[in-house]
């Protein structure tokens, strides 16, 4: 018995010693935040580990709200979010935080309607119809206003089940930001934020949860990040933009949305991409940002972070398209690089 205990204890202690030896070799940089860009971030950190073998970037996708919180608490070296920090949040953090755009993505309306999934590739939605569905004013799929946008589609007499996020989410931010933009009623009744008081519907945790609920619930409609809908083979709707065209969410139409806002981009990059003016631009798109402190107190880490950020906005962009994110246009990349050069490493 004593022997057994000695063996077990010995194994544990040697493991701990081994881990101590490892410690000397690598620099570990920790980050946390948004789930929306998780696929591309994990790809980047995986590839970057091959380029610079002296550093590992560890990213945990705990949600945009969590990312903002942890960077403000300084428990992580960088944060990530899809909804920009508010002025109040920035003030609370105590030191200046940079928002650095990494890629853009689209939020899509996904639905579960067996009856129409065969007849046509996707349903079409006008902005006011989207708002009224999520306000609970349009209750049935065969409502006249949905039918008007979808001539020739045989819409069933079925109740609409709205599905939304239950947790604080950047995806929610982009979606309700859009609804506030196009609907006065939404703006006054619900407003925008990473979590809002939904007038109707069921809540699911994370993009995964909403995807799952829509999949299981006939007659449901929800919003998820584009790649989640594509990976799960769910249908998603075309949305009418300002120019009056119905736009299918895609890499190209998201890029167009980004292009429309590049010239008027504010210097802190905290901009919303929703409802852009471009003729082929998809209206519910958003940027995703990495959050870093302007003053980096740890010299070794600061230098590595700057190097990585420069890589991400240049060479890293080539991984975006495969994962259905829109890469940044060159004019914006130059601006971001200028910003990165302002980071002070002591």
């Amino acid at each position, binding site marked *: *018995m004593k022997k*057994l*205990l000695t063996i077990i204890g010995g*194994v*544990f*202690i040697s*493991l*701990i010693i081994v*881990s*101590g030896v*490892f*410690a000397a*070799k*690598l620099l*570990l940089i*920790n980050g*946390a935040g948004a789930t929306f860009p*998780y*696929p591309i971030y*994990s*790809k980047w*950190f*995986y*590839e970057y*580990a091959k380029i610079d073998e002296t550093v*590992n970037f*560890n*990213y*945990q*996708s*705990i949600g945009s709200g969590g990312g903002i919180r942890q960077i403000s*608490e*300084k*428990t*992580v070296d960088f944060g990530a979010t899809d909804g920009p920090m508010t002025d109040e949040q920035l003030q609370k953090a105590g030191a200046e935080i940079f928002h650095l755009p990494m890629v853009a993505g689209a939020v899509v309306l996904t639905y579960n309607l067996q009856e129409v999934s065969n007849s046509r590739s996707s349903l079409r939605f006008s902005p006011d119809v989207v708002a009224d569905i999520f306000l609970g004013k349009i209750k049935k799929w065969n409502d006249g206003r949905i039918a008007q946008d979808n001539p020739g589609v045989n819409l069933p007499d079925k109740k609409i089940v709205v599905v939304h996020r239950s947790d604080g989410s950047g995806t929610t931010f982009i979606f309700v930001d859009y609804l506030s933009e196009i609907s006065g009623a939404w703006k006054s009744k619900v407003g925008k934020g990473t979590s809002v008081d939904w007038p109707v519907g069921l809540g699911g*945790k*994370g*993009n*995964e*949860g909403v*995807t799952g609920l829509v999949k299981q619930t006939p007659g449901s409609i929800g919003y998820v990040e584009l790649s*989640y809908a594509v*990976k*799960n083979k769910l249908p998603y709707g075309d949305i009418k933009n300002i120019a009056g065209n119905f736009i299918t969410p895609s890499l190209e139409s998201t890029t167009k949305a980004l292009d429309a806002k590049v010239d008027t981009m504010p210097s802190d990059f905290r901009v919303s991409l929703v409802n852009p003016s471009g003729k082929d631009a998809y209206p519910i798109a958003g940027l995703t940002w990495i959050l870093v402190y302007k003053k980096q107190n740890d010299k070794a880490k600061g230098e590595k972070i700057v190097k990585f950020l420069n890589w991400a906005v240049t060479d890293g962009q080539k991984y975006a398209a495969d*994962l259905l994110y829109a890469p940044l246009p060159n004019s914006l990349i130059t601006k971001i690089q200028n910003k990165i050069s302002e980071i002070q490493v002591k």
Partner: protein
Amino acid sequence: MNNYLRRKITDKLMRALTVFCAIFVLLPLISIFVYVISKGITSINIDFFTQLPKPAGEPGGGMANAIIGSLILTGMASLWAIPAGVLGGVYLSEFSTNKLGTLIRFSADVLSGVPSIVIGIFAYSVWVRPMKSFSALSGAFALGIIMIPTIMRTTEEAIRMVPHDLREASLALGINRFKTTIRIILKTAMPGTITGVMLSIARIFGETAPLLFTAFGNRFWHQGMTQPIAALPLQIFVYAISPFEDWQRQAWAGALVLIGLTFVISLTSRLVTKRKI
């Protein structure tokens, strides 16, 4: 006669009911085993035990870092919680005054009922926030807190079972109190103590909640005690809710490994306790 028949029928009915209930209790356990094995067994391969995770959505890779991480976390938690728990148990049964003893016992019982997520948040606010870093140490700290009440109470119970004669005989032979406690009492109570220790290890091995905001998770090999570290339950949690099929598959494999290791720990504790002194 009529009365006799009625009693007999009642007896049969009640017996059938208890058998049914016993099966009913076992059913979830068995179905969990069967389900996890059937889902996970096909995904277990050499890579799973030797490779690091791949980026999201790419097939392949493994959970080697998480398995090692879990072992390290459990080891470090044991390193401080076992001595603390055992000595606490010794104090309770051997030295405590009535009032203080009752207070400690009550606190331990309350502590063992505190949800593990609360302990995680506690460790976050007293360790992670002041230190400005998620770390393996803070994870081990949180897990240790969960272990202590179980170890303390089982140690106390085990020591209570030691016959008084033994204690008196030892003292009568002129052996001092310290030696009597360590060499005679604790040694006699060893099987029970070890059961408590093993049970608490088995429990923390599968804990996710206290690690979310302490150990935090790590995509790479562990890099020292002051850095975040991967853990098997954390990895399973992340993989299971992901939209990627390959990750969901690996989550099942991870669950199977977790159950397997916990099973080994429980089995060891049973074997140890069977060997009476």
